[in-house]
């Protein structure tokens, strides 16, 4: 099923540490120009998977193809296709940003010297690039990390929790930047996150991970639409509940509100029914599920641990 557009192909990837199987057979494909999200709670195996994708950790079994090159057999060619930040953007604090980039350019034979200037401008670090990294804020380090990842003009960019620790403005900038790279530069971007809101805003497709497995891969719109909820603030509660239960499933009750699934066609009809029955409907709003909701839904009641 590998199609010509696939830049990153993973087949039945597994990792055992000691007796414990941490990654239990992942398979997925990423296409050119898409932003793909790894969504899962802490400990789901996102970082471990990413470490395997970039060659830091050797899989117990399975295959990884980067732009068609097998990571295990053609390491240098395969790794040449990617840029990455795994966990935190750690660079040499005693060197300047510029020296850090020079350091990595020297390790790859075919990067032209002026590429450093290009990426520095791309991430907007011109003003501070000649300062030592130890004086940088986290946001600046994150940008330098991205600059470092983009040095070799990679086809695939892999970012592990890229917005972790950033302030709201930083998060938004990062999001826009990632979208820009995918849409305008045609990169394939793989990002991981434990926050649904994050993934929802920047990804085209998402893989939901838990306990070393992918539970589901889908487009973000589809997943969310399916899981979107309607919150009803109604009085009296019991009577409204009885009426709504005739039409749909009540999936929750929270301080004076009822929660049902969202159905674009029907919500107004349900509302009409309530109003006609003399129920005071003071508020109807839709709400995206939290990651936890999604999880409980997808794993049928298993909690995140």
């Amino acid at each position: 099923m590998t199609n010509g557009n696939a830049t990153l192909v993973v087949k039945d990837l597994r990792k055992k540490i000691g007796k414990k199987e941490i990654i239990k057979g992942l398979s997925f494909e990423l296409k050119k120009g898409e932003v793909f999200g790894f969504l899962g709670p802490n400990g789901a195996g996102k970082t471990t998977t990413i470490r395997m994708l970039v060659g830091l950790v050797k899989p117990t079994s399975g295959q990884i193809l980067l732009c068609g090159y097998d990571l295990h057999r053609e390491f240098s060619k395969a790794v040449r296709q990617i840029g990455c930040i795994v966990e935190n953007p750690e660079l040499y604090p005693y060197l300047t940003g510029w020296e850090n980039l020079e350091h990595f350019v020297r390790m790859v034979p075919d990067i032209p010297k002026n590429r450093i200037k290009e990426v520095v401008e791309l991430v907007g670090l011109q003003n501070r690039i000649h300062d030592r990294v130890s004086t940088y804020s986290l946001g600046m380090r994150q940008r330098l990390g991205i600059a470092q990842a983009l040095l070799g003009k990679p086809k695939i960019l892999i970012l592990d929790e890229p917005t972790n620790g950033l302030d709201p403005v930083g998060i938004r900038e990062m999001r826009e930047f990632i979208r820009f790279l995918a849409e305008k530069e045609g990169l394939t971007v793989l990002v991981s996150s434990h926050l649904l809101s994050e993934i929802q805003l920047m990804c085209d497709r998402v893989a939901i991970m838990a306990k070393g497995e992918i539970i589901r891969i889908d487009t973000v719109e589809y997943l969310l639409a399916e899981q979107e909820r309607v919150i009803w603030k109604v009085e009296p509660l019991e009577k409204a509940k009885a009426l709504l239960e005739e039409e749909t499933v009540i999936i929750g009750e929270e301080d004076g509100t009822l929660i049902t699934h969202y159905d674009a066609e029907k919500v107004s009809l349900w509302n009409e029914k309530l109003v006609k029955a003399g129920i005071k409907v003071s508020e109807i709003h839709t709400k995206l599920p939290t990651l936890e909701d999604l999880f409980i839904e997808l794993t049928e009641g298993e909690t995140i641990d």
Partner: protein
Amino acid sequence: MINLVYNEMIKIVRKKRLLIIAAIIAVLVALFTYAQLKRVQSIQEQLGTTDWRAQLQQQIIDTQNRLNSSGLSEEWRKFLQIRLQQQQYYLDHDINPSAPGAPTFMRMFAENSIDLFIPLMVMVIAADLVSSEASGGTIKLLLTRPVKRWKILLSKYIAMILSVSFILLSLGALSYLISGVVFGFSGWTLPLLTGFSVHGEELDTANVHLISQWKYLLMEFGLVWFVSLVVGTLTFMLSVLMRSTAAVMGIMLAALISGAILSTMVSSWESAKYLFMVNLRLTDYVSGMAPPINGMTLGFSMTVLAVWGLAALIISFIVFTKRDVY
């Protein structure tokens, strides 16, 4: 490869490691120069400043008398003749044997620092070469470049060799320059005795001969370099195996200090001679000091050190290329 080594050297230099080491050496050399000066002064006070010529003259006459007496073994006679030659040289060239010039100081400094001070300095460089990349997380960036892992490690190893060589060069240069200001810069051609060997309890003087100090120095610095490389390689291995630079330094420090203590008390524990740390004083073989354990020779010690170094190198490369990086 040159690029990779260049990267590693930049990191070592920018961490100011080499500068700090050079400063430590300079301070220590100055300290020892002062101590040496005090010693020379006190000897001169005891003997009188001009008296050393008369004293040397007296020693020469003594040696000559012993040479003339009968019942001397052939070997011993030869040894005394060489001694005589040396004393005569001092007298002829107006050299006070107890007030040495800078090259002599340099030699003594190297001989006394071969088993602890120099290894410590080497350790400071080698201990964090790999462990700091692991603990700082930068190893992830290094290993996700299109460069094979063994090449990255090799570049670090070469950088270690270069740094060690730099340390020894600066040790030589600083000890020569600083002590030279006080003791004068001459003495390169001073004849020194070498060729001693120890058989059982006996000092074998059969092969003793004179060589000029500069050859002697070259030989000793060669040995110091060899010892430094082995210590550097061992530290390098620990640095690959462990994330914590402090732990690497702790283990090396314990090994080196235990070596210094052991060599003074292991004469009856024979298998201790296979430990690397009691084999570090290679220069003692040149100057004819008794080894800590019977039967140890220069060749033996160098072999032991080489085996340890090689094993460490192999382990480093296997572990570094195979292991998962978290």
